[in-house]
């Protein structure tokens, strides 16, 4: 079921009504039923995968939790009888038992993700190698459908099990509650990747009808729909025209396509997250923010702290840090410092971890070399920026422009262009083509080909461009307003007439200007595929 569909709107409308009519203690059960129903619509067979992930995570978490409790009981009961060494040895033994269970869970759940998402990619690469060595043998592809949201819910459950293992919070003793955490439908489509200790604070609570909360949630949903159906789905046509015809659209059109895709992805992804957070808010549930005005970032590193925040923090907490302090990496760090000294030698292990994390981030985004190269490029840009820091410092010591508006604007524009250029790997069919097309921006950049007629040839009319321009102004205005706090808070203190005028314009805009219905190729949210 797509968010931008009549069925989904009917689904959430009925859910909102029933949610506040039933006894409050049953609300979370209703959400579980609704989430499984929502998932059922994406393909009944997908229920098996999510159920398996929930069950395996639940059982292992309960087991690890029991081991931890037994350890505490044992140590308390034998507090005077065990020597310090014996206690240490016992703890190590117990930790090793927990680790085995944790590994089992990680293998099972990442295994499902790996098999469903990466099998055919692996086969394609093996076939490619076989062709290169002149072997006539080719492996057959598997016909496996990727279950919707599997990357999101796998990461979410894995953060849960690791946190239980680390003793951050106890295991959830009610399987159905954990099943709801895994399958909570608004975030199943494209995140955010919630943490159990965050989401569980409000997910299982009893919620009474709070008109302000509901209002705020609905506002956020409307704003999300506006971004998705009025802006993202409209500009999608032009983006597709450019990227599907690389022989025709080169040079300046690649540049235009790059900017348009940056616009589309922002409106699409943040719109989807707005809908997710809005739905949760109507239900009284707090879901973490996933964006913080990313296109105002002044560096790549900052950009990744503000774009898809929950994914970034997941990789940081569950891959980057553990990798950095892992045994092999510590050994490598020692070697590196010996070989390259305390400066570069210290940084090299960090860079190796960075590259590994970004390789994995790329692979998580999609089973293709495009995404892997995309991830590696992001990591490389971050490393190069860090290595260039002394150069920046020298520049700023000579030229005092750091805090001027012009320089900040330059940094923002540079970051947006750089991120957008790297992101073109999402668009073209393979890596060489992407680089070839990006290359034409420098070799065939002829502005005179960018005529009005050519722009109209991208599948959009003058009216569409006007809508996109007004939409862009609205997005920038909202982002600027957000710097001093929530726009909805600001709106809430305005006179009723102003508030209703805003809702009115939003609703009418979505209904009339929305790129939906027959005649439109209604697209899924881009992040659905991940």
């Amino acid at each position: 079921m797509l968010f931008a569909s009549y069925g989904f709107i009917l689904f959430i409308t009925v859910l909102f009504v029933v949610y506040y009519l039933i006894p409050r203690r049953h609300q979370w059960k209703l959400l579980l039923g609704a989430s499984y129903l929502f998932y059922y619509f994406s393909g009944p067979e997908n229920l098996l995968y999510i159920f398996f992930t929930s069950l395996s995570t639940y059982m292992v978490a309960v087991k690890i939790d029991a081991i931890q409790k037994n350890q505490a009981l044992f140590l308390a009961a034998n507090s005077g009888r065990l020597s310090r060494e014996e206690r240490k040895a016992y703890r190590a033994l117990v930790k090793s038992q927990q680790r085995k269970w944790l590994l089992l869970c990680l293998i099972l759940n990442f295994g499902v993700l790996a098999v469903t998402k990466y099998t055919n990619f692996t086969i394609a690469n093996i076939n490619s190698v076989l062709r290169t060595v002149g072997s006539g043998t080719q492996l057959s592809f598997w016909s496996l459908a990727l279950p919707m949201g599997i990357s999101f819910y796998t990461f979410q459950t894995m953060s849960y099990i690791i946190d239980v293992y680390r003793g951050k919070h106890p295991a959830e003793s009610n399987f159905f509650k954990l099943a709801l955490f895994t399958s909570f439908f608004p975030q199943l489509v494209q995140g955010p990747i919630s943490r159990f200790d965050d989401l569980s604070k409000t997910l299982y609570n009893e919620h009474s009808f709070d008109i302000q909360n509901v209002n705020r949630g609905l506002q956020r949903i409307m704003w999300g729909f506006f971004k998705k159906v009025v802006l993202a789905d409209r500009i999608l046509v032009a983006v597709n025209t450019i990227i599907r015809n690389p022989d025709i659209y080169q040079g300046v059109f690649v540049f235009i396509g790059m900017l348009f895709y940056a616009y589309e992805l922002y409106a699409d992804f943040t719109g989807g997250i707005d809908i997710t957070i809005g739905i949760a808010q109507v239900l009284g549930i707090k879901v973490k923010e996933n964006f913080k005005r990313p296109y105002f970032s002044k560096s790549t590193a900052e950009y990744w702290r503000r774009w898809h925040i929950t994914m970034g923090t997941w990789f940081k907490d569950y891959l980057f840090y553990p990798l950095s302090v892992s045994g092999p990496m510590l050994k490598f760090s020692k070697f590196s410092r010996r070989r390259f000294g305390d400066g570069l030698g210290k940084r090299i292990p960090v860079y190796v971890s960075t590259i590994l994390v970004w390789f994995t981030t790329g692979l998580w985004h999609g089973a293709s070399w495009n995404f892997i190269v995309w991830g590696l490029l992001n990591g490389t840009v971050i490393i190069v920026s860090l290595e260039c820091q002394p150069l920046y410092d020298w520049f700023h010591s000579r030229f005092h422009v750091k805090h001027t508006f012009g320089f900040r604007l330059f940094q923002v524009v540079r970051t947006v262009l750089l991120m957008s250029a790297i992101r073109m790997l999402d668009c073209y069919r393979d890596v060489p083509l992407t680089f070839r097309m990006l290359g034409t921006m420098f070799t065939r950049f002829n502005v005179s080909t960018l005529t009005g007629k050519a722009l109209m040839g991208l599948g959009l009319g003058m009216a569409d461009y006007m809508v996109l321009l007004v939409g862009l102004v609205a997005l920038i205005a909202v982002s600027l307003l957000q710097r001093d706090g929530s726009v909805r808070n600001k709106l809430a203190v305005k006179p009723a007439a102003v508030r209703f005028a805003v809702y009115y314009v939003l609703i009418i805009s979505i209904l009339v200007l929305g790129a939906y219905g027959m005649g439109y190729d209604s697209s899924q949210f881009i992040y659905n595929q991940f």
Partner: protein
Amino acid sequence: MFKKRFLTAVAVILIMTGTLYLLERLLMPKHVSAIVEGSLIEEYYKEEKGHDVIFVGDCEVYESFSPITLWEHYGITSYIRGSAQQLIWQSYYLLEETLKYEKPEVVVFNVLAMQYDQPQKEAYNRMALDGMRMSLSKFKSIRASMIEDEKFIEYLFPLLRYHSRWSELTAEDLRYMFRKGKLFHNGYYMRVDVKPVETVPRGRKLADYQFGKNAYYYLDRMVELCKESDIELVLIKVPSLYPYWYDEWEAQMEDYAQRHGLMYINFLELIEEVGIDFAQDTYDAGLHLNVTGAEKMSVYFGKVLQNTFGLEDRRNEVDLSRAWQQKADFYYRMKEDQYRELEEYGYLKSLGARPPESTAVD
């Protein structure tokens, strides 16, 4: 406080509903100067009811019979509930709806629609369904007609379908937002232009000549509906040269009519008897009849109706005569306008003149 909030809520809902209604009226296609066939279905509701004969079917019907001629020659009142490529279930549900307004003596169904067993195109669905008033019959017709990508809700709230027309609105959309004059003559779409038949088409071979189960299902229901309502059902095939009418199809229809005791007339076999001349009586080389062809058909078929079913000549009913005189005036005025236009431009630039609002027959 509560009262104030309540009133505010009511005002907001009213303003929103009112705006959406106005937007829907504005954005729906008007079908006044282009694809006028899209206005055929809705005109029925403006009519006085109580017709003797109701025609249902596709374009072959609304181009082949002139109710004005039937009235002028036989005093038979009739109405054509037809639209472009109207599928058999659409005809059935239109008939079902019509019978809620009136009970004719005879229903005439053109059997060309038997060739389609499944929904075909959204554009034709829209022409058949958008004009229908909200009713259970309409809902059932929508459900039976939708192709894969169509959504029921977009028929209930056409704004959801036509919202994207905002960028192509013309002055016509504003002018005809709430009211438009009549374009047709009791469902008859007049065309006076001529495009003679040059070659008689031959049907290409089909893999299967058997009419589909779905088509038969609705034909059975139509038969049943007429029987229950004590209405005579006549099956016809008008004399259009294409789409090609196959012998195998003809055999099935003859057999069906015989089994159900229905009158069936294939006018393709009566072309000479009716007097149809395909050098003069068609405006698109044999696909549809023009006004002269439709008038000839009406003269012939009116006699059949009168002789077979004993339909009364109602020209002596004063009020009815007055109303039909107005219709006839409009008919002849449009005919003159079309001939004049044809002479001036060589083709029907406006596809039919429109009557002044003051003389429009509502």
